[in-house]
């Protein structure tokens, strides 16, 4: 109790210094949390992707398509339960800055994505309307889209102006699911292409296959690819998660830089905190010497310093952790729709806590050892 009292009162002795250190710690822990959340958001799509779904694409590049005739053969592979197909559309909604993903998909596409929840009546309405489309909740909220609205897109890969009618709005099964995309009938695209660009008709961007056992993903992938070996369009099949991570990997260096910066921030505050504790301990050398003269051991002095350091870090780190969630909300609003999912994960909070604890302990080590070792006679001379 007396130790606790001394720790708290010592921590509050230089209120301005302690307050500035606490603010620095709070900002550092907050910055760390936000930067780690940016990294998490980057990977959110890949992490949300399933290992129970395989994506088959052209082995040369995603730019090249696959014949629609492959679907039946893929469906015949042992372990494959369902097969859907999709094409990246790449249209512009009003202005290029309004970018979002648009896919022309087979009608059974959503059967493979149980994480997208669509009311049954909207599903039926969508299936009945050749020009119908489905939009995710995040996308609908962003552009104020409602069921029945017309959604015009200017084609870039598929020229012309394409008009769709919003027939349904699907939600994610939880807050981590990204619902910032638009789906429409592949048949509508294909029929139009048959009229306008017949050579591009009956082509598929990727096949998505549901499998009965994720543990067999590698074997099934090999089986699918072996079907089309030495054909004009060889395939490359991988899990949906690996497929998504392939996209994320393109920005690996940026992510690495963000992660490095997040730890540099912690290192900087460690230096600040260590300086604060060193100054405090140096100023109190005579007090520590007096305590030793009275009979208190070096362990008690070390505990005083470590306790004070941890108390400051607990306040600063705690404030930083508490501010992270609201700051993330503000950050997401300010960042617009760059990050459809921007949530502070429990893992990030745990790392923030660990960083604050590590800073508290590391900053106290040298002052604690020095104070514990101080010779009483020399310590007493510090004020004499």
């Amino acid at each position, binding site marked *: 109790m007396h130790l606790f009292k001394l720790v708290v009162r010592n921590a509050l002795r230089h209120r301005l210094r302690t307050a500035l250190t606490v603010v620095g710690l709070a900002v550092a822990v907050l910055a760390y949390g936000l930067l780690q959340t940016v990294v998490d958001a980057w990977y959110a799509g890949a992490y949300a992707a399933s290992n129970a779904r395989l994506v088959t694409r052209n082995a040369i590049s995603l730019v090249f398509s696959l014949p629609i005739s492959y679907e039946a053969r893929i469906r015949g592979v042992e372990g494959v339960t369902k097969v859907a197909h999709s094409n990246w559309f790449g249209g512009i909604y009003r202005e290029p800055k309004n970018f979002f993903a648009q896919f022309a998909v087979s009608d059974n596409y959503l059967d493979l994505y149980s994480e997208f929840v669509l009311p049954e009546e909207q599903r039926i309405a969508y299936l009945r309307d050749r020009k119908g489309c489905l939009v995710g909740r995040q996308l609908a909220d962003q552009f104020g889209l409602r069921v029945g609205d017309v959604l015009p897109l200017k084609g870039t890969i598929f020229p012309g102006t394409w008009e769709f009618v919003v027939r349904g709005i699907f939600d994610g099964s939880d807050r981590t699911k990204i619902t910032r995309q638009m789906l429409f009938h592949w048949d509508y695209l294909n029929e139009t292409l048959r009229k306008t660009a017949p050579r591009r008709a009956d082509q598929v961007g990727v096949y998505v296959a549901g499998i009965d056992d994720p543990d067999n993903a590698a074997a099934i992938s090999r089986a699918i690819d072996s079907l089309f070996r030495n054909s004009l369009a060889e395939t490359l099949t991988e899990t949906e998660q690996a497929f998504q991570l392939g996209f994320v990997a393109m920005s690996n260096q940026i992510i690495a830089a963000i992660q490095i910066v997040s730890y540099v921030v912690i290192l900087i505050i460690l230096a600040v905190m260590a300086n604060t504790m060193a100054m405090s301990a140096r100023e109190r050398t005579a*007090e520590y010497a007096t*305590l030793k003269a009275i009979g208190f051991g070096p362990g008690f002095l070390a505990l005083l310093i470590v306790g004070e350091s941890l108390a400051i870090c607990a306040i600063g780190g705690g404030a930083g952790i508490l501010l992270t969630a609201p700051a993330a909300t503000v950050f997401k609003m300010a960042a617009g729709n760059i990050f459809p999912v921007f949530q502070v994960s429990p893992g990030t909070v745990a790392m923030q806590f660990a960083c604050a604890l590590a800073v508290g302990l590391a900053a106290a080590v040298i002052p604690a050892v020095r104070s514990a070792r101080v010779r009483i006679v020399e310590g007493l001379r510090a004020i004499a």
Partner: protein
Amino acid sequence: MNAPLVEIRDLRKSYRRGGQIVPVLTGISLDIREGDFTALMGPSGSGKTTLLNLVAGIDKPDGGVLRVGGVDITALAEAELAEWRAANVGFIFQFYNLMPVLTAYENVELPLLLTALSRAERRERVALTLSMLGLADRMDHYPNELSGGQQQRVAIARAVIADPTLIVADEPTGDLDRNSAADVLSMMQRLNRELGKTLIMVTHDANAARAAKALVHLEKGELIGAPEPVAH
């Protein structure tokens, strides 16, 4: 005759300064008996504070014999020495050395935290000691809310609270005005006369030294003559 409380024989101490060894005490021999109030006097650099520090167990001699209460404190390890100081020595410093973040009550209570006394026993003892020293109404004051004389009285209370065998005081009046100094010296005399405490005081103030029962003069690390009784 009983054995002396403090037995010093051929005590030597030197410091290393700038690569040179500077002798501070060069073979001091002195006995201090229980109930004595001894003043160590001498010019700056004579070694009086070093001698006090050695007797109090906060510094180690280079050689010689140093027994306090029959214990050869030169043979004790650091942890043992800390325990020995907690049980046997009370300290009074020139600049009081109170913890600024603790109240007068809490400062005086500090040495008792190293004992097995209960909280209630500690409270009773601290309150009684502070009352004896005329600080009953200053218990909840922090050092910066007290005058120099009051702070030194708190320091005296801290020095005696654990009932030590020996009280050492290094220039206890050096930072006080004449009235406060007289007050502090009077209290030290009471501790000696009424409670039978053994005190060793370092001072260069002849007036302060006259409060003691005996004067010991040091010069250049050596005792000058035998302890000189003070007539009161």
